[in-house]
Structures are given as C-alpha cells and as structure tokens.
C-alpha cells in the first residue's frame, strides 16, 4: 500500500458486507438522530472513530501515562515507547522515515509551523543552513484558488511578514485548476509552492506531478495539504516527491488534537524552530540555546501522547483494511453521489464532471439556502456540511456564497447515499420553490 502516489490503483473495492462489518466498529453510527438512524456524510469535516481508537487512548491512560522523553521511571519509558512507536507507524503509513514526521495539533498548525519557521529564517535565525527558507521582497509564494483557508492564510501572513508576494493558480468556473498557467506562474522568483492534494470542497484530486515538476525546475519548496487525501487515498510522500505534507488525525479515524507534518529530513534539520521551550533543546544557558534535530526540535512542551497512540491505532485499522480498497470504495460512492445528485431536478453539483474525486460532492438546491437544506436533511438524520467550508475564495470563483457538501468515508454504505438522494428530491417541494 505504500508505493502508490495518491492516484488509486484499480484495486477491488470493499464489498457491501465488509462495509457493514466496518460500520459496526463505530458505536456512534448505531445511534439515532431525530428518531431516525444517523446517516453521517460529513467526514470531510471530521471522521467518526472506531472503538479501538478511543479504547487505545483509555488503555494508555490506565496503563502507561507519563511524560515522554524525560524521567527514568518505568511509566515514562513505556509512554516514550508508545509515543515513538506511534510516530513510526504513522510515518510508515505515508511512506516517510520516522524522523521525518513531526507531531502537531492538526494540519493548520503544521502549515503554520512552516510559515513561522520561514519567517524566523528570514530574520536570520538558523544561519546559513537556513538560507533556503529566507524570503524577502521580490520572492514569491504560490498557492491556488481552491485552498482551504489553512493553506492560504499562513502564506498571506508569511508574505506580509517578509515582504514576499503571494500569487495563486486560478480555477475555471467549474472549479478545475488552471494547470496550463503553471509555467507562467512558477518562475525563478518562486520560493515555495503550496497546494492541496484533494479539494476539501470539490473532492477533486490534484495532479500533483504538475506542481512538483514546475517547482523542481526553479528549486522552489513544495508543501502539500494532505488533509483530504491521507484519510481517503494511498499516499506515499516519497513517490509524490513533495518536500512537506500536512495532515490531521481527526479526519482519518484518529482523535482530535493530533496532526502531523512530514518534511524531508535534511530540510527539517535545517529549519529554525517555530515553538520553543522544553524538550526541544540540547544545551541552554541564559543567553541562548542549542536545538535538537528533527523531529524533537519542533515538539516543544509536553506532547499529546494519548492522541498519538489513538492516531497510530487508527492508522493500523486503515492499513489492515487497505487504503487502495478504501479509495476504490469511496470512488464508487463519490460517483454515485455526483451522478445521483446531477440527475435531481433543481439541484446543481459543483466541480468538473471529468475529474478524479473522492466521495466528496458539493451542491446547491436552487432557491433553497444551504443552511435550510442542511436543516431539512438533519430532520431525516442526514448530517452534511453547509457554508463556505473554510474556502471563501473558491466559493467566490464558483459564483456562490455557500454550498452544501456531502462527504463519505469507508463506513458509508450505498444506502446512505440513496437516503441523501431521496431526501434531496423533496427539498424544493418542502420549501415551496
């Protein structure tokens, strides 16, 4: 599973029976909402968690809780082992070496880590070794118009702080990335290219190779937002050949409060730290400090140990099922969604029709505000996301303020999709449009 590049291979999808058995591992999906069985189609916001994940956290607290990387007692040793084993498990899951995986609170913090480390380098921190991370007037950062705000605002702020210029790859009115403009937009001035692997709104999969090739040509760093790809597709950072990748645990069956940054070893070791304090130093005197190599240099303060253990348990769960098969199942559900919604009178889907997508589809019920659509669906137990999904520029480019988004995961059945399609067929009638 660790050799693929993010484009799912033609693996056999999960069977309906397997999905039912998977679903049974998720206590919350057995509950009712508003007197009906819950149909959870909001995994793009956060996934549900199988029992084994929170049981792993509980087990940690009951048997091994202690601060890591300090203290000589047995519990501290065991906690450290669990914490570092989790790193190894999650690093392996994305094809990284263990010391190339830095724990963060979430993908947002991971992206901010790069942004602030680069500001610090631009102020001279990290010395000559960090020269590559310096930005100033005349330098450019390139992102895209379809990014989640978390992969946009940290670069806006980095540009403000350093005097660099932020540019972006626009999208078509269908929401397709303008790859044809990459050659023009990536120049000798470009120092960093930040782009998403999968759009959190459209569910479309980026042709990452085009970005990586363009960036390599000019020696720019590449940052991949893996929030919506790592949970849903086989992802191998070495095959993708990106310099950095950020992702969040809570979208991939793991707990909230834990995410990670992948970075090439030589880059992480050359970057000045972002958060500073305990646990990330070697020698400290009153005037200055020497820092640990990666990943410890980026893990100041007491860490989220139970959460790393929970995330590693989630990753083992996914690995056992096989990400290729998860991806194939969700591709099937995504096609069912896209085609099914397209056929409903008075409902419009967003996103290019010919794109490769995960099980995420945004749509509009003509004449009914997304908030009202979401409320109507909720009364039937169907959970979807409404609003701008933290991607206002994307919505502006699509010509709307907000959309309704259905997003699947491996525990969603065909019946879930049918329930949504059936409910969508009666929304306009209910609201009298």
């Amino acid at each position, binding site marked *: 599973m660790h050799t693929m590049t993010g484009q799912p291979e033609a693996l056999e999808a999960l069977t309906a029976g397997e999905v039912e058995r998977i679903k049974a591992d998720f206590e919350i999906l057995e509950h009712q909402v508003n007197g009906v069985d819950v149909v959870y189609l909001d995994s793009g916001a956060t996934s549900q968690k199988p029992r084994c994940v929170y049981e792993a956290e509980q087990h940690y607290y009951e048997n091994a809780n202690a601060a890591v990387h300090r203290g000589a007692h047995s519990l501290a040793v065991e906690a450290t082992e669990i914490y570092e084993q989790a790193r190894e498990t999650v690093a392996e899951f994305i094809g990284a070496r263990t010391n190339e995986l830095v724990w963060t609170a979430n993908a947002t913090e991971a992206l901010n880590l790069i942004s602030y480390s680069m500001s610090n380098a631009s102020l001279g921190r990290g010395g000559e070794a960090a020269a590559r991370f310096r930005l100033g007037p005349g330098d450019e950062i390139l992102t895209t118009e379809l990014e989640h705000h978390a992969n946009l605002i940290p670069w806006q702020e980095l540009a403000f702080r350093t005097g660099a210029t932020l540019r972006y790859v626009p999208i078509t009115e269908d929401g397709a990335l303008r790859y044809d403009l990459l050659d023009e937009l990536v120049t000798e001035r470009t120092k960093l290219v930040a782009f998403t692997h999968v759009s959190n709104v459209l569910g479309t999969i980026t042709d990452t190779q085009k970005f990586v090739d363009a960036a390599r040509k000019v020696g720019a760093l590449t940052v991949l937002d893996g929030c919506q790809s790592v949970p849903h597709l086989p992802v191998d950072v070495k095959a993708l050949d990106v310099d950095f990748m950020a992702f969040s645990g809570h979208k991939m069956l793991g707990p909230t409060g834990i995410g990670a940054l992948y970075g090439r070893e030589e880059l992480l070791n050359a970057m000045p730290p972002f958060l500073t304090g305990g646990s990330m130093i070697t020698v400290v005197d009153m005037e200055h400090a020497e820092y640990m190599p990666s990943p410890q240099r980026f893990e100041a303060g007491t860490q989220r140990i139970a959460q790393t253990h929970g995330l590693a348990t989630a990753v083992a769960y996914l690995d056992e099922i096989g990400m290729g098969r998860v991806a194939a199942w969700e591709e099937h559900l995504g096609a069912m969604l896209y085609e099914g919604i397209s056929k409903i009178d008075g409902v419009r889907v967003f996103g290019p029709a010919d794109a490769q997508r995960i099980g995420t589809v945004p749509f509009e019920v003509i004449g*009914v*505000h997304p*908030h009202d659509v979401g*409320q109507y669906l909720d*009364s039937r137990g169907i959970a979807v996301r409404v*609003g701008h999904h933290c991607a*206002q520029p994307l919505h502006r480019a699509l010509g709307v*303020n907000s959309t309704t988004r259905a997003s699947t995961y491996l525990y969603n059945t065909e019946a879930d999709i049918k329930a949504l399609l059936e409910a969508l067929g009666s929304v306009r009638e209910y*609201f*009298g449009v």
Partner: protein
Amino acid sequence: MNELDQLYQQVILDHSKRRIGSPLVELTEGLLHGESHQHNPICGDQIRVRVELDDQDHFTSMSWEGDGCSISMASASVLAEMLPELTKEEFLGKRDYFREMMRSKGNFEPDEDVLEDAAAFVGVSKFPARVKCAMLAWVAAEVAMHEAHK
C-alpha cells in the same frame, strides 16, 4: 407539528419569499437615517439594513438587502413590516421580548399582539444553531438606529 414544521412555519416561508422592505430604498430628506451591515461568519449570511426615523424618535421605514437562509431573510421581512411607526423605545422592548423568546429553547408562548408575525419564530428557539439567523436583522436594525443621524 414536528419540530421541522415548527421551525419552518408557513408564515416564515412566505416572508422569506416576499422579503418585505427589500431592496434598499433611497433616503428621504429631512429624516434621520442609519445603516448597518451585519455578517454571520459561520454561514456567510449577510444583511444591510437601513432605517429612517423622524424627529420624535419614530421609525418611518426599514429597508434592507441580504443574502442568507430562509430564517434570516424572513426575520428581516417581518421586522421591516413591523418597524414603521414604532418608537425607539417600543422597538427595544420588542427586541428584548424577541430575544427572550429566542433563548427559551422552545419554552415560550409568545404574545402575538407584541410580536405579530415574529411570534412564528418561536420554533427557531429549539434550534440553537439557528438563533443567530433569526437575530441578524434585529441586531442590524438596532445598530442602524443608534447610528441614525441627519
């Protein structure tokens, strides 16, 4: 009536389409006028409300333009219908009463003589996530009132 039907009472759905007071109207000379733009960052709903008052602190008109869910748009329509001829004090009294209803989580029997069509929003109070939608126009009208000048 189920909870959804209590939320989306016919009078609310009607107002969300009629949009009384929308779009914005030109200012009348000689009156005090104020304007406020309010935005709900959670859902992106937005509204611009313009009110006019005479020298005796009576509202003479409310007009507005907005983009949002049926609850927020209907609430603006209901308010635009109710506001003319109210005094500032009467408006603030109704505003307090409306807010009390919105915070009641459904435990409220509104006096229709006080709230008129706005009484239909009692069903909204059972949906905490929607209370902001219902309050948006009221907040905008109050800010516009405080800023009113010649």
